[in-house]
């Protein structure tokens, strides 16, 4: 992947930042001229990943969320969302549709929606150290 442009941000795990994160990524990705659906899919995936940090990584405290977006010159968007929170004991279980530790306020569909909206999803987590979620989506050329 030949990098065309990169954007990095760091912000506290406050829920008000969910809207900020997806809007910032949406504005940055717009330079690749995505369709409305592509842009909506990417913003949704960012919202899911950032919400996971806020709800699960830092359940009783505020911590830092690091966001990185790379655009390649062949139209690929790579987004990484990292936290230094509690980590995930069993990543495979966490990615199972409808599974949640968040009670009935959560749908358990976050990773499922990321998987259906992005071309790839990778989750690396170390319990007690944190989690990194990397997602990729290729923007179809409209030229």
């Amino acid at each position, binding site marked *: 992947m030949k990098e065309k442009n990169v954007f990095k941000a760091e912000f506290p795990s406050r*829920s*008000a930042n*969910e*809207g900020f994160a*997806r809007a910032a990524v949406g504005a940055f990705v717009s330079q690749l001229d995505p369709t*409305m*659906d592509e842009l*909506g*899919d990417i*913003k*949704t995936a960012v*919202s*899911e990943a950032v*919400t996971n940090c*806020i*709800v699960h990584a830092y359940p009783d405290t505020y911590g830092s969320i690091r966001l990185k977006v790379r655009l390649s010159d062949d139209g690929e968007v790579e987004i990484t969302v990292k936290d230094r929170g509690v980590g995930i004991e069993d990543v495979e279980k966490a990615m199972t549709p409808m599974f949640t530790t968040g009670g*009935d*306020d*959560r*749908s*358990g*569909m*976050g990773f*499922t*929606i990321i998987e*259906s*909206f992005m071309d790839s999803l990778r989750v690396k987590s170390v319990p007690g150290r944190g989690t990194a979620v990397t997602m990729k989506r290729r923007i179809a050329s409209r030229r």
Partner: protein
Amino acid sequence: MRIRASCAGRALRLYFDGELDHHAAKRAMGEIEGYIDSRLPRDCVIDLGGLTFMDSSGIAVILKAYRRMHDIGGRLGVERVTGQPRRVIDAAGIERLISIA
């Protein structure tokens, strides 16, 4: 995110406007339960015509409203679902439980 309600007989219609994410979901759930518990409708429709964004937190809100309506022996439907919210609802597969139009 804003919710408005209109009630005709035992039919309750809830209009969602704006963006429904985890930040907005907690208050939205409280407001919806308040409307359902005070009006005890037979039919409740969530109107997403004014919703510009939702994620899986919105799915949780809809499922909670569905369970509430089920508890009081009523029905829930979701209407005017287009654009980005439609893609999220389709991906979550909740049309098996809830009528989506």
